[in-house]
């Protein structure tokens, strides 16, 4: 279904890739020749069949602009994006879940209200504005971290981490806002249950009640929202990589769009969509471990 949509999205929009490739000065015959070369003169269903067949055998075509296979291109750009996304999720989960639990524990208190205020702010502040704010403060004023760029993991762990801290922090803010909010809401719901009263009546330490009893029962919605956040994360990656000059998939997307490189745009969008679907599927499957009542 996603494949059909990605294909249609790029084929049904008015705007003829052949005419764009040929340039403004091209004659009708030249355009026709390019169109035939790209297979665009065949009926749409046949075109789709050919394209889908290739995609299923792992061939996303060749980039108009970079002149190499789109799959190779994606593989080259995968490391920075993967590192950035992984660090972001790690940071976000480690920060937001304790915050959410604390806010639910002291529901209505100053900490709770501060966190909710932060979360509305986190949703509202644009990723790139935050990025520049952090660059200005941390890199330019304080001089703690490098401004931009990316270092491969193979070139040393320290510069690799140094270059990723700011982008990952930038990206994790909206994620923290999202997860903390849901954690708070679902822990709050769990805290109202009878088994919490029982646990407290047994004289269990409060930390154990919160983590073992309340948080464990709130795990499913938290996992779900982490999955929902993946799509937001990918959107953020596109922007963050542009601001911090990280040569990842997000930058590739923007470059491909600016160069009107259709096979690459198609390939990257398909790849990102597959990742989104795959991660959400994994999260669905993880419910079995998080909540033993769920069986597939």
């Amino acid at each position, binding site marked *: 279904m*996603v494949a059909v949509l990605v294909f249609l*999205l790029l084929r049904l929009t008015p705007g003829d890739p052949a005419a764009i490739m040929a340039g403004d000065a091209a004659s009708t015959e030249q355009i026709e020749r390019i169109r035939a070369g790209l297979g665009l003169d065949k009926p749409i269903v046949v075109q789709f069949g050919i394209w889908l067949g290739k995609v299923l055998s792992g061939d996303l075509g060749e980039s108009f602009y970079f002149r190499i296979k789109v799959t190779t291109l994606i593989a080259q750009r995968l490391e920075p994006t993967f590192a950035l996304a992984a660090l972001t999720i790690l940071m976000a989960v480690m920060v937001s879940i304790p915050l959410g639990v604390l806010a639910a524990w002291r529901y209505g208190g100053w900490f709770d209200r501060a966190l909710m205020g932060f979360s509305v702010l986190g949703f509202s502040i644009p990723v790139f504005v935050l990025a520049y704010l952090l660059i200005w403060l941390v890199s330019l004023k304080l001089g703690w971290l490098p401004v931009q760029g990316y270092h491969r993991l193979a070139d040393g762990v320290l510069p690799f981490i140094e270059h990723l801290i700011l982008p990952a922090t930038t990206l994790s803010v909206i994620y923290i806002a999202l997860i903390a909010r849901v954690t708070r809401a679902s822990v709050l719901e769990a805290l109202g249950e009878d088994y919490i009263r029982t646990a407290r009546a047994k004289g269990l330490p409060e930390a154990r009640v919160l983590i073992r009893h309340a948080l464990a029962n709130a795990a499913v919605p938290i996992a779900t929202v982490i999955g929902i956040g993946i799509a937001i994360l990918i959107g953020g990656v596109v922007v963050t990589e542009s601001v911090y000059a990280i040569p990842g998939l997000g930058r590739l997307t923007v470059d491909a769009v600016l160069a009107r490189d259709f096979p690459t*745009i198609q390939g990257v*969008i398909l790849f990102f969509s597959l990742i989104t679907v795959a991660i959400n599927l994994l999260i669905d499957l993880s419910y079995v471990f998080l909540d033993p009542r769920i069986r597939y």
Partner: protein
Amino acid sequence: MWHNWSVRIGGGALIVLVAIALAAPWLGTVDPTLFDAASRDLRPGETGEISTLEGDQLKHRFLMGSDSFGRDIYSRVLYGTRVSLIVGLAAALVALTFGVLCGLSAGYLRWLDGPLMRVMDGIMAIPAILIAIAVVALWRASLPSVVIAIAIPEIPRVTRLVRSLVLTIREEPYVEAAIALGTPTAKIMFGHILPNTMAPLLVQGTYICAFAILLEAILSFLGVGLPPEIPTWGNIMAEGRVQFVAYPHNVFFPGVFLAVTVLAVNMFGDGLRDTLDPKMAKRL
């Protein structure tokens, strides 16, 4: 509704922003497209000269400094308010219109439910920003195409909301009564069911509006949005990012406006949700 503090603060800020957008020409601005090579990269508050289209030299105080073409950031930011508010409102309207049509059909006409919802699931699997980028990349970037590009990824969310509401409303006694009286299906859908979905739709509309303003700025910032000569917050920042280290004000001022606007719309939406839909408020 006005007793809610979120509505008051968010609504108040929005009224100010709308006023700024409408009154932009009378707030000490110059034409946002004017530039002057002699007044390039001025710091905020410095005075410089700007030449009008007629060739006159005007003395002008650059409240927010100027960019690398010598254009007045203050004027550009104020005029940018117009673009952002129009895009936000228009995208919300487009997404709501199509979402309501699809949601009503899927919820009320059983045979359409399956196919339509699978298409919507498909759209939802693609991250919103990528759909928007792809659509603008293929169409020539203009106000309508940017609005549509931003609205498309929001349509499935509205559709799902409307469908879920319709599925409960269709079982209500008054709908049954209308069917029994032989009311035409279209009239039941638009006359009996639609009015009962309005409150959650209004709330959803404000969130779409906030998201649209944000996405428009992102598209412009990445260089794939509205053409660079149109003063939008994203375009001002895209132009200023190159020399961000030396002149942070180019990015700073539009960024503040953008963040405040989105925050105001989001707060307004939260407040609306709390007053119109207390059940939903408890869940989040």
